[in-house]
């Protein structure tokens, strides 16, 4: 009897916690739906990085370098090994790249509008010709994911391959390169998109959300079960 009671409590607890997680997910979704209706079908591109699937092979980095002609020694995309040294067998990797903020400080501070939001796609990108390399955007970015390209001498960020693969209606280079499907790219405003289907069923988080810039990248963290 007593055992049974405990079990029931445990189940109740589980139920409650999933309700909490569920409502959080719903909150984000509702917010996104509201945006869809009043922004009349403008796309909002986003990306998911699934930490459970990433093995740290860095194929995405290599492919990004090639497709976007990023100079050697520089990167728009980096995979950081965040494995806890105390548990070296539990590998953890994290994608480091522009978070494609909806309220992007880099766009707000750029004095020449070289760093801007692309009219059609809403993607934060660059017009290298107008950049004077003042580095204001670099210090303003809360995620520290911008740099001055040594060759073009202009600031740069991950723009979902806007001028390369995206222009050819292909997925970003990193997404194409990932053999483990750890990366998903798509339109968050399209309710039927694959990226939304995943977000419906998995708990994804935004990186450092307290900065309040509303990143469009979502991370599915490794969560230990059964401990």
């Amino acid at each position, binding site marked *: 009897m007593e055992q049974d009671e405990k079990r029931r409590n445990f189940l109740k607890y589980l139920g409650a916690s999933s309700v909490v997680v569920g409502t959080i997910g719903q909150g984000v979704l509702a917010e996104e739906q509201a945006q869809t209706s009043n922004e009349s079908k403008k796309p909002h591109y986003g990306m998911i990085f699934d930490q459970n699937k990433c093995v740290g092979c860095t194929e995405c980095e290599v492919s990004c370098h090639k497709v976007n002609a990023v100079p050697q020694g520089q990167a728009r995309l980096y995979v950081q090994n*965040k494995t806890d040294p105390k548990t070296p067998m539990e590998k953890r990797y*994290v994608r480091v790249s522009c978070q494609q903020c909806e309220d992007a400080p880099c766009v707000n501070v750029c*004095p*020449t*509008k070289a760093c801007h939001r692309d009219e059609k796609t809403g993607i934060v990108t660059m017009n290298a010709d107008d950049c004077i390399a003042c580095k204001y955007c670099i*210090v303003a970015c*809360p995620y520290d994911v911008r740099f001055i390209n040594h060759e073009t001498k202009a600031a740069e960020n991950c723009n979902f391959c806007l001028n390369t693969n995206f222009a050819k209606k292909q997925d970003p280079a990193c997404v194409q390169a990932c053999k483990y499907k750890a990366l998903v790219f798509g339109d968050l405003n399209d309710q039927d998109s694959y990226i939304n289907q995943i977000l419906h069923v998995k708990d994804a*988080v935004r*990186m*450092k959300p307290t900065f309040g810039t509303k990143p469009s990248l979502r991370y599915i963290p490794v969560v230990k079960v059964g401990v």
Partner: protein
Amino acid sequence: MNEAIEFTVGFSHGVEWGWPIGVYLLLAGISGGALIVSLALRYYKRQVEETPLLKAASLVSFVTIVFGMVFLVGDLEKPLYFWKILINYNFKSVMSIGVLALCLYIPLTFVLVAVVFEGWIKEHLSATPLSKLFFLFPLLKALRPAVEVLAFVFAIVVCAYTGFLISVLVRFPLLNTAILPALFVVSGLSAGTAFSSLIASFFFKADAHGGDMKTLHTIEWPVMALEMLLLFMLFVSLIVGTSFDKQTAGAFSQGGYSALFWFGVVGIGFGVPLVFNFLLGKKVAHSAFAFYLSGAASVLGVLSLRLFILYAGQTFSA
């Protein structure tokens, strides 16, 4: 931090805005501060003649801001493209607003120099082709009250904007505070006062211990006290803040930048003027040596402050 997931590397090189920007921030502060103080004094004392202080301050404000521009443009990685900033404006950007303010402020300081030095110019430049422009003087004279008011207003704007410029950087707890613009205005006042008094007494023969210099000498201490208070507030806001803020408070106690703070800002900027004016007796305090030394120390102190804020600020990030 204890997030479910996070990354801890970045693509920048730590301090992206280095010493040229620090020097620019100092020069802009001196320029604005010098004009604010000298014009305020002129209004307050209802002066109509060209005082040595006004001569010094107008010259200082023009020359320092022009040198400031050299540092600012020199720090761009594409300095030859700086004109792009003059044709593209983004009104959400503090930098754009600052550039706009500077585009008005620099000509204003130039005009002020021209009217204040009218006598000297007519005397020394009448043999040059520039004398053809002398017919403009009556016009400038008519505009002078407006020029002075505008220059005064824009001097405050320029001082404050340099603070806002870096206080919008959310990644850095030492910079991202409401106190910073105020601190920059106040420290600009103290550097501007010090620098223009030095010039006024050295080149324009102002009596180092009488008249305007004496007035400046009395307001110097409340300004310094305010500067200390603002720094103290900044420090307290960090130690009672989030874990990032607390970490950032370490800028005051560890590493090379804390030495810059205690030696440069506190020791030279506050300590030297205080010691020479109050602790070593009246005789020393009234010497020309003490006058020049404490003036130079104030300016150095403010330079240290700008560099400390900039370097330590960009070293500790959230």
